[in-house]
């Protein structure tokens, strides 16, 4: 008997465990991991994408920092930001100044938008002794230009991490890490595929929690958890509802409250794809595990990474194609644009994407949220009406 079958956990246990991780704003799991062995380090990162393989190969734990959600009281963070700036930077600062991130040895701020970019500078001013890096990715996608630049950026990132650990990241170690993350991405895709086929079994809020667990657990444990979930969910007998199938788009940075994910489902929409935690599946294919690993990671980014508002689309006719392809592949009936208030990337992108959807006659609606939104009734009503409309169209 395979070990995973022997050790297989019940669905409720898995989901409860993920919920505990999600609720824990002290990141106890990551703290425990660090404390378990002397010399361990934890590197925080914000959305949207960082190559976690490199952190892992340095013997470190990548820790996704996705804001404070709806359970964190933001007291200090508001003093750092004007009212018209989104929530995630202020709650992230709150996590830091309340010492919830005091075990983190470094922070990475990806090139998602100007708010995260400038947060990297705030970090440097607040914590000058902690390693922090604005992590840039190329917007030129040819290997001789963007690729060369990116490989060097990856090397500089690796050197920064080596400075913390005092040990060199070898190609062998990096290739091993790539292998582990390849496996992790396969499982993430399996979970998404299972949800696509049987969304009444793999409920979206559970899948959400399962993906969130990947932000705080070592990759090996997260992969095991997904394996367990996949087995448990198949065995589960859950009623199939007459819901429509939607893709949620625009939530790639500041995360919606879990209640919002639940509300969409309760309102009659099965979420069959989303862009919640893109880091889990940003690279759309296996990264080779031999040869030069930095070049392989760069190549993967240039040639088969996902698409989101923070990435330039070089050709006009390709704008929105990624989303339309997802609608087709996932057999979605509509798209819900759910973007954080004041989120420039998502909100500036929205008119182009909705134009592309309209040209294909794909129904869509949009609303805004904040990570601490409490009132779900309006969203539930909007999503409910959307579901009804789609059903009516479908029957017409």
């Amino acid at each position, binding site marked *: 008997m395979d070990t995973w079958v022997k050790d297989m956990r019940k669905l409720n246990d898995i989901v409860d465990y993920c919920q505990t991780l999600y609720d824990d704003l002290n990141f106890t799991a990551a703290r425990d991991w660090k404390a378990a062995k002397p010399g361990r380090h934890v590197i925080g990162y914000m959305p949207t994408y960082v190559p976690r393989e490199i952190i892992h190969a340095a013997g470190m734990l990548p820790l996704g920092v996705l804001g404070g959600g709806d359970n964190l009281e933001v007291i200090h963070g508001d*003093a*750092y*930001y*004007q009212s*018209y*700036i989104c929530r995630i*930077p202020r709650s992230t600062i709150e996590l830091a100044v309340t010492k919830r991130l005091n075990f983190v040895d470094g922070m990475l*701020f990806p*090139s998602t*938008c*100007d*708010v995260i*970019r*400038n*947060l*990297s*500078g*705030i970090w*440097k*001013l*607040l914590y000058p002794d902690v390693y922090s*890096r*604005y*992590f*840039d990715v*190329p*917007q*030129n996608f*040819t290997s*001789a*230009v*963007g690729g*060369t*630049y990116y490989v*060097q*950026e990856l090397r*500089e990132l690796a050197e920064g991490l080596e400075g913390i650990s005092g040990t060199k990241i070898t190609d062998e170690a990096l290739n091993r890490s790539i292998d582990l993350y390849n496996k992790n991405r396969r499982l993430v895709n399996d979970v998404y595929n299972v949800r696509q086929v049987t969304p009444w079994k793999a409920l979206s809020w559970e899948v959400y929690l399962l993906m969130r667990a990947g932000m705080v657990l070592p990759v090996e444990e997260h992969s095991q958890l997904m394996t367990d979930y996949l087995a448990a969910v198949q065995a589960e007998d859950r009623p199939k509802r007459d819901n429509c199938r939607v893709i949620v788009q625009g939530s790639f940075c500041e995360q919606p409250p879990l209640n919002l994910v639940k509300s969409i489902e309760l309102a009659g929409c099965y979420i069959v794809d989303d862009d919640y935690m893109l880091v889990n599946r940003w690279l759309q294919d296996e990264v080779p595990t031999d040869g030069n690993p930095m070049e392989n990671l760069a190549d993967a980014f240039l040639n088969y990474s996902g698409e989101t*508002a*923070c990435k*330039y*689309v*070089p050709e*006009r006719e390709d*704008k929105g194609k990624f989303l339309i392809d997802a609608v087709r592949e996932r057999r979605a009936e509509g798209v819900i644009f759910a973007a954080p*208030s*004041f*989120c*420039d*990337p998502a*909100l*500036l*992108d*929205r*008119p*182009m994407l*909705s*134009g592309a959807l309209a040209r294909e006659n794909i129904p869509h609606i949009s609303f*805004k949220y904040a990570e601490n939104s409490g009132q779900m009734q309006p969203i539930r009503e909007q999503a409910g009406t959307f579901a009804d409309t789609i059903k009516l169209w479908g029957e017409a």
Partner: protein
Amino acid sequence: MSNQTQITTPAASQEVIKDASMLKQKAMIADNYDKLTRAKELGLKVASTYVPGNLNELIMCFDMLNNLPEINAIQNGMRKKSGGMIMDAEKMGHSEDVCTYVKADIGNMAKGSIAPNGKPMPVPDLLLLSYTGCFTFLKWFELLRDQYGCETAMLHVPYTGDGIITDNMRDYVVKQLKEVLIPTLERVSGVKFDIDRLREYLRQSAKAEDDLVWVLKSAKNTPSPIDAYFGGVFYIGPIFTAFRGTPDAVEYYQLLRGEIEQRIAARMGPVTPDGDLGEEKYRLVVEGPPNWTSFREFWKMFYEEGAVVVASTYTKVGGVYDYDGFRHDPDNPLESLAEYCLGCYTNRNLPTRVDMIEQYLEDYQADGLLVNSIKSCNSFSAGQLMIMRTIEERTGKPAAFIETDLVDPRYFSPANVKNRLESYFQMIEQKRRAGGSARAA
């Protein structure tokens, strides 16, 4: 003064004195809009591009004109037309939360892209997306490309997150210039690239930049002969827009320098829309862009109180020439274009922005820092409260904060701004009494 002319400005319907430099700039701008709106007839190709990271010298190498959507938005803001354009764009589905420059531009397009001379702007032949210091740029040109369907070339300028320009960043930008931009410009314009032509333009740029820096630094005098924010936006005009690298720009800055030399000799304060400033009471450093829709009213709130801006960060958004001495360099043409882009103000990390402001406060003997927080602009605004706090801690000088918007009149509340400014001036007075800040002489 010998080189002044009495003219009447329609906006204010009042007599003001215009210096020769102002008249020259006005003529340059009018001529540029004339060329832009007659581009087809003149057989000229047009590149739309942004102020930060604008490659005017390079564009000129291809006999192309340079059209800057931010400047058009500003023009529409100052003419009080942007409010309606923004609302039109919102009706078209653009979020109320995003940058109003973008919406003013899109709203203007829907109305036929009318230039300040009343004639329609041409459809650009190329969108030159110099992605420098602002994320919105990337989306803005994707949106324009969606509408115009014209060719778009991206120049990705990496953000200097660690406060330094690395070789990797410079090489990356140079490579893009060589392998993407220049071939695209050659193809679109039909003109072959000549690096010596570029060198010559860069030589002219450096000359103009020397004089611009001299002008900006003249604010170290007491009283300051210039206002480096409200006046500053006019002084940077030629260098920010379509004229860097031209003999016209060199001449403009020579004229301006001459005028300011005279003001210093006569111990005169800056020119304001109501004539020369009287007593200089407060010397300020300002961070953030101005409000354009009520520009005069906004400025008046300062000069009426005798407040002069002696240094501003906004005037560095299209290039930083004073802080670390950057000049366009004809001997290293492409590298210097890369460094220019990499060094624009909003492409610098927050700690560098704080260092710059701290140095301005010191060098220009300012009483304090005023932040104009712009609702539209995350690139500037996200982090400004941290900048204020750090500056106060480091210098002991008072910092204050007002909130407006660039071109959306809904976010300019005169009473609020005035109240805050008055309290701020009182705060400076209190500091002075407590011996915390040097009294302007």
